[in-house]
């Protein structure tokens, strides 16, 4: 599990005003979003109709990260806040640290790079590593450091604070809640209106991300993100295995990741990296605009127009179609064009 400075946890514990709590929920939203460009770049690096299993795994995690972001927005709205999503610094700079300095304990640098086993191991699995990963046969990457806390602890501190402050902080307008069952099932996304609905929603984030210390799955039997990515790294499905001391092993169906069928995308691309007038530049600028429109649309969604989520999802798919074309642009040096994920305000 990536960690953040324990001071942050301490500060949350010291909160006496709901306004302070809102700031940490805004940070939670930014953190949940920050992994999306990283995972999407990996997903989009796969050639058409190739490495399908690995692609499905990454896609399933991306969808849950979006769910987690939505949950955090619901909680912030419920306590009278207003998520700020459409601003340049909402998006991390790649390569770089994640929001709140998450991962700095191990020097994690979030990078936009194609889906390779190395990227899965050093970035994807590092981001998602549970507090106590089950050794199947993965060993934990770093020993505990008392100066750092896990993201699970971060959410637990928020949960504790919500319980402590009580139902009176739930002053938000209920019409701002997103509880859309077209895109997310009702048992994953619900309206947050009080302590109970808020805490259960935040617990879902932790469970889906980390699983539990006893099982790699959450209550619904879905593998936690870390183990899903590990399936790509080990090239096998994680299955129950009586012969394994922990009851699980990476010995199931193959999960192939054939490097021949992955575009060697330029790492951490920026639109400005591509020559003006080139087709790569044009696609980079257009995908930036589409991505920014998506953030604008999400901002509206979580600031009083929940029906805007349909448009946000439409933009998500438009971005995908555009990027899938973009990554076929051969830059001529063994690299292929990659989407930059920069926030822009105009289509130029």
């Amino acid at each position, binding site marked *: 599990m990536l960690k953040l400075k324990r001071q942050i946890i301490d500060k949350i514990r010291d909160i006496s005003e709901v306004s302070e709590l809102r700031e940490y929920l805004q940070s939670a939203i930014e953190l949940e979003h920050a992994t999306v460009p990283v995972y999407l770049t990996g997903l989009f690096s796969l050639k058409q109709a190739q490495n399908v299993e690995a692609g499905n795994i990454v896609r399933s995690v991306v969808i849950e990260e979006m769910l987690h972001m939505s949950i955090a927005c619901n909680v912030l709205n419920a306590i009278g806040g207003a998520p700020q999503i459409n601003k340049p610094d909402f998006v991390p700079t790649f390569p770089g640290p994640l929001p709140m300095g998450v991962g700095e304990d191990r020097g994690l640098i979030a990078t936009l790079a194609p889906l390779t086993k190395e990227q899965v191991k050093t970035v994807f699995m590092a981001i998602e590593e549970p507090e106590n990963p089950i050794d199947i046969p993965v060993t934990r990457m770093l020993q505990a450091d008392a100066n750092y806390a896990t993201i699970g602890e971060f959410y637990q501190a928020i949960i504790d604070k919500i319980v402590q402050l009580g139902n009176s902080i739930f002053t938000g307008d209920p019409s701002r809640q997103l509880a859309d069952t077209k895109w997310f099932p009702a048992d994953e996304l619900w309206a947050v209106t009080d302590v109970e609905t808020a805490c259960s929603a935040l617990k879902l984030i932790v469970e889906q991300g980390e699983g539990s210390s006893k099982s790699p799955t959450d209550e619904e039997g879905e593998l936690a993100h870390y183990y899903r990515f590990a399936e790509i790294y080990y090239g096998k499905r994680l299955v129950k295995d009586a012969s394994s001391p922990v009851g699980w092993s990476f010995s199931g169906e193959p999960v192939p990741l054939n490097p021949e069928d992955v575009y060697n995308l330029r790492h951490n691309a920026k639109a400005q990296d591509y020559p003006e007038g080139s087709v790569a530049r*044009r696609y980079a600028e*257009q995908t930036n605009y589409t991505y920014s*429109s998506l953030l*604008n649309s999400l901002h509206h969604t979580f600031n009083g127009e929940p029906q805007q989520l349909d448009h946000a999802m439409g933009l998500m*798919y438009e971005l995908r179609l555009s990027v899938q074309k973009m990554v076929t642009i051969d830059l001529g040096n063994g690299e292929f064009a990659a989407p930059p994920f920069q926030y822009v305000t105009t289509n130029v």
Partner: protein
Amino acid sequence: MSYLNNLRMVFSGRFQSDVSTVNNDVRHFDVDKFVPKYQEYGPGATNGWWNPCGSGAFRLIDCRVTQVGYQDGTTTSDPAKDPVIGMLLGGSNDLVSAKMVDLDPQMQMVSEIWGLSMRLTDGKTPDFVAGRFLPAPFRDILFGRQQGGGAGDQAATAIYQSVLEDLSWVDSSHSPFLQQLKAMTEQVGKLSVRMMLYSYNMDHKNPDFTIGRVSGVIGPALDFEPDTFVLGRRFAPANGQNTTQNINFFNAQVDAANRNLCVDFSNALPLSGTDGAFVDLGKMKLVVLEPPFENIKEGDTQLIAGNQFTPIGGAIPYLTPDWLNAEGALFNVTDIDPTLLQKIQCQPLALLSTDNNGVLIRETAEGLLVRADQVVHRLNPAVPVSVDLYASRYGIPAAGEKIAVTLQPPAKGMGGGGPQPADVPIPVINIPASAISLGQTVATDSHGRAHYGYSVSAPGNPREYIDGQVYLLSYTPVSDPGYIQQMFDFIANLVFDKFTVPDKPTWDDIKPIMSQYNNLYPIMGRMLVNLSSYDSMVRFRNLLELAFSREQSDPNYMPVTRDLSEPKRQMVLKWLCEQDANGNYLLRRGQNDAPLPIEPCASCEISSPLAKASLEAESSQDIKGSKELAAEQYRRNLTQQD
């Protein structure tokens, strides 16, 4: 006064129209005869034509305000005088991109822009003004207008004129222009917009593939004005297509109260290249013709001797560098002498070459203009339809003008070209005539407007492998059978077949429809949802519900499915949304089907440097566009009937 008003905002920049072209050949709608190569690049009118993997997106890119005009006739291009100068005229920044869509493979000459939002922005503050572009087709297309720098449709230009509705404004007190515009627009609540599109790149090996240039103008829309054309003065080539110098139809408007006149040359004069510069046709000026002016014809010279014209304003500054982009190629004459103004209001205008006093092009006889406003219709049987027809003389709305509407004769060979399957016939359009019940000849009211009503019934699947039928209605002024019309000034209808939504639709009902779209829209099938696969449809159920539940004007509506009839759309939606008592989606299966394998599609890839070097450059003939071909087919039918 529409966009041809003293009060106006000129912008220019680029656009992208990423239309898909597999559906450019009607025969590709035959699911049984479809083969995978129809999803690959042409060349020309073969296989999947020039952009088989198009998304349908229409986008405005880097469109900047270059000039504003005020009510008093003055203009500025100085951002210090008006902060609007240099701002961007953009599409939406929180919705998917707009779409460009043909009516039907057998009628591709009225491509409409759907779901476009336009907004004026500096990229920092909220949009200064924003509105929704009422879907409209291009008009006044001219092929071969641009010399050099492209072939086929690349050399064509056309006008999109429409209105922006549902306007929203933010404080514009720092801009004199926006203050005036907002005040003038308050009553009607919409703005008039014109976009002239040119230099569209159809070469998929060029970095600017699917990109073109746009010259735009926005002005107030006033009461009783049509939305999609200027009810003003109409300059018309004598042969109904273009003049000897390749001058196109164009429009002007006289504002008698303020004694000024504005002519829109943006779509009129031949272009010398791709950057919007005009061909040098010598010195030219605008004149009003003197009696007996009806005898003065396009091409006539030596008018001075007969004293047959009076000049209006100075020379047309069309050779001024960047006139099109900087000023929208609008020629304004202000402060017109009252005596001259009187003549202008009852005598025809002409464009004169001052080198030889030759009439380059003149206004229609008796200043007559007859045009229809809503010219594209997707019709389900038994739903009544109405079109606003307008007439004016010398720019003044004409009352009592009778306009006759007729169904065009059966037309063959539309919407197909090149070596395609020989055993798939190209259907004849405009048959059976019995499916169209025309109304009576109408006469215009005091606003020059007549509501023309007609109705349709189910055509009975005359085209067999493609739903419904295309019907083209001509309209002509009864008083002047020789009235010169632009070739595509007709009313285009796609009339769907009758269809009854099944009580409990299954995949067996849905699959034939979806398989057709999967064939015709490979970007979806190859990259996202295999529409012919039950499993893929189930997996993307929510996305498909979004695409099929929206209004047609919504940009999320899947572009190629605008040729889906309403009951069929309802059936798809019913199938996608039916739930059991526990809220689980039923998605009734019907018979099993084997999903088609999704194969990598070269047409969905952008040329790599190596591949580019190995590909031979396509000749001009090879990239001949679908529009030019469709126009040729239409013209051929007209000629045969003559």
